[in-house]
């Protein structure tokens, strides 16, 4: 995965991020524990496993800025944008919403993916701005070319939007895309796709969508501490038993 290349991460430490009532309830005993000079490690060694989420929230507070930005922007009447114009943001929102659509379960739109990308492009992914600078006019051009009566990508129907995007994705089976390969198309599409997936699935406690939208879609539980049984197959497992013939087998 070579998507972002900059070494320095500008995400500031931010302890003020709201994490929901459930976490806050446990924050007090944890802080008290810390005050009693018990290190986090000892605290964990003592088996306080149910407090995992809290421990995570108290101790992994870094790198939340993009997510916070995404959330606040999505909730505010006038979204704050750092890289995209409002019109461009509408287009990106529409594109990411075809990559991970909202259809019964929330998708890229609900996860605020466009705002995450917007923030990323002015902070840790500056080098990838070029793909958007070149790609967005290309999206407009292809929209016009394929559907002359449509003003912009975001005004097209979902089916039309898919056809436009398919024209960028040369890895699509040929019968499913309009045949118009053009230099840089795949590059832009892969960037959009990667960024959408990252923004959708990045750990909600480490800078991803704080609502954990993507993890809910995957069925990935939000916790950072688990106890067996983990799933269906290990729930009634009786424990390891040697194979009855436990002698050295002849080699193949």
């Amino acid at each position, binding site marked *: *995965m*070579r998507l*972002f*290349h*900059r*070494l320095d*991460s500008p995400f500031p430490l931010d302890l003020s991020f709201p994490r929901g009532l459930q976490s806050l309830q446990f924050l007090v005993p944890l802080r008290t524990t810390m005050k009693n000079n018990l290190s*986090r*490690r000892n605290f*964990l*060694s003592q088996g306080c496993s149910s407090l*995992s989420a809290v421990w995570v929230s108290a*101790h*992994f507070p*870094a*790198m939340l800025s993009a997510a916070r930005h995404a959330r606040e922007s999505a909730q505010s009447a006038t979204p704050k944008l750092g890289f995209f114009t409002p019109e461009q943001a509408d287009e990106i929102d529409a594109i990411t919403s*075809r*990559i*991970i*659509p909202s*259809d019964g*379960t929330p*998708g890229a739109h609900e996860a605020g993916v466009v705002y995450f990308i917007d923030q990323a492009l002015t902070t*840790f992914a500056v080098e990838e701005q070029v793909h958007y600078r070149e790609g967005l006019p290309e999206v407009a051009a292809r929209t016009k070319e394929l559907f002359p009566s449509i003003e912009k990508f975001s005004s097209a129907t979902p089916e039309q939007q898919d056809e436009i995007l398919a024209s960028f994705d040369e*890895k699509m089976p040929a019968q499913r895309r309009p045949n118009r390969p053009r230099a840089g198309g795949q590059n832009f599409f892969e960037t959009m*796709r*990667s960024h*959408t997936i*990252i923004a*959708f*699935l*990045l*750990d909600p*406690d*480490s*800078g991803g969508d704080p609502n954990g939208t993507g*993890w809910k*879609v*995957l*069925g*990935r*539980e939000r916790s*950072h*501490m*688990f106890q*067996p049984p*983990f*799933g269906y*197959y*290990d729930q009634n*497992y009786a424990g*390891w038993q*040697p*194979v009855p*013939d*436990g*002698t050295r*087998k002849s*080699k*193949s």
Partner: protein
Amino acid sequence: MRPDLPKYKTSDEVDFVIVGSGAAGGIMAKELSTNGFRVVVLEQGPYLTEADFGHNEVKILAQDFLTNHPKLQPNTFRKTPDDKAKPQRTVVYGRLVGGTSVHFTANFWRFHEIDFIERSKIGSIAGSTLVDWPITYADLEPYYTKVEWEIGVSGLAHASPFDPPRSKPYPMPPLPTKGSGVLFEQAARKLGWHAFPAPMAILSQPRTGRSACINCGFCLAFGCEVGAKSSSLAAAIPVAEKTGRCEIRPNSYVHRIEVDSNGRAIGATYFDEKRNVHLQKAKAVVLCANGAETPRLLLLSANKQFPNGLANSSGYVGKNLMLNGGGISFGVFEHPVNDYKGFAVSRILHDFYENDPQKLGFYGGGGIDARYDLTPIGFAMGALPPGSPRWGKGYKDLLAHNFQRTFEVFSHTTSLPIENNSFSLDPDVTDAWGLPALRMTYKDHPDDIKFARWLNERGLQLLDAAGAQRKWSFPIDEQVFAVHLLGTCRMGNDPKTSVINKDHRTHDVKNLFLCDGSSMVTSGRGQPTMTIEALAFRAADRITDLARRNEIA
């Protein structure tokens, strides 16, 4: 509580300067300082702590927060010495205090007897420089046990009928059995094979102030926030620092070992964080910089006396590189496995560790494990079956269905030593400090590819027997990418065909020692770190003995 740590002056001739603080360097520092020596460890990366680690995949995986950085430290690659190498990322290793042991999977198999004596047993192999080790499994056994007890390994002794002899059980029971482990074990039983609890360098119980594994699910590629993973950072360096005799000096990029007119090493020259150059003086130098950087450093240290690089009279510095091969197969199951929870591996099997090349038609051996080592983003990028939609509703539906139901069967295999396979200095490309970049030359031996494909078929058989509804593999082709960095300054009795002797002393420079993946003579079956650490414990014993008998300086 961190003890008051010594700060040695660079002009202060310490007993040992160790280059690198990873699997080998951390243990070397622990052992030598515990034995009473004054030690400086020069580590090119930063000194991070558990509080610095997190689960941000962008930062860790895409921005190389814990690993060597391709822009600052470019690599080049070519298949054979006749080709011109092209810039391409070929090597990934941990670049921080603790080295690669911070982010590794922590699979911790011992080598078996056969790994040390295979040349004698099967004879020569065309195209390979395969030789026996100058030491045997029996020589190393006490040190494997030391690793298990002093660094911390979970496992079940005598569970595999193929296990080599051991003098002591594991210090703690195996980690929990994951769903992948249950299915793998059942499948193996059906096939008449012998799955057993994977030995892992991850604590299943709290130990010496470190937490047991909390099954957070971000293990491979990530640092452990609770110190459960038995990295050098968690398990060795704190012990070294506690002696009060060991200084860990991070952000110190060693680029030259200095030698006096008598051919004796006098210390290591390095760039500090601000790129100022220093020479740390020492009575002896120990390189534990990994199988890529150790030979590179020897080559960078060429001078009039050693025109082909330090300790390179054999011409074998950087040669005989072995990467280990293998195959990855995925299976999708009916019910949620939820294998994302926990560490990577809970079951392995060694039924195919040793094979008869006459019967098989080619050389090779290996082990197979059941695992899940993907992050959510990693899964979405690369773990859906071939031909799956890559975006849109079909893509999203498949992610939602498969994420909880997928795991991997991973086979790990031998690499034969080949003289042309090597690390060397690139003549054109330089790193951000102006030093020649690391150049990799590598082409797998045909038997390595054949055996990797053969063993991968066994993996697919396991997934079938486990009841996978769908299964597939990544294609197995010639490798161009290195994580296991083995054999590049190999150990041997003959100075003409090896770089170090069995005390890890270079044949050419009396007070220069090397210990890391480069010391290995054969590649084992894919899990080298346990053996690197056992070698480090043994080397530290040998070096201590020599120093006490005044036979170094």
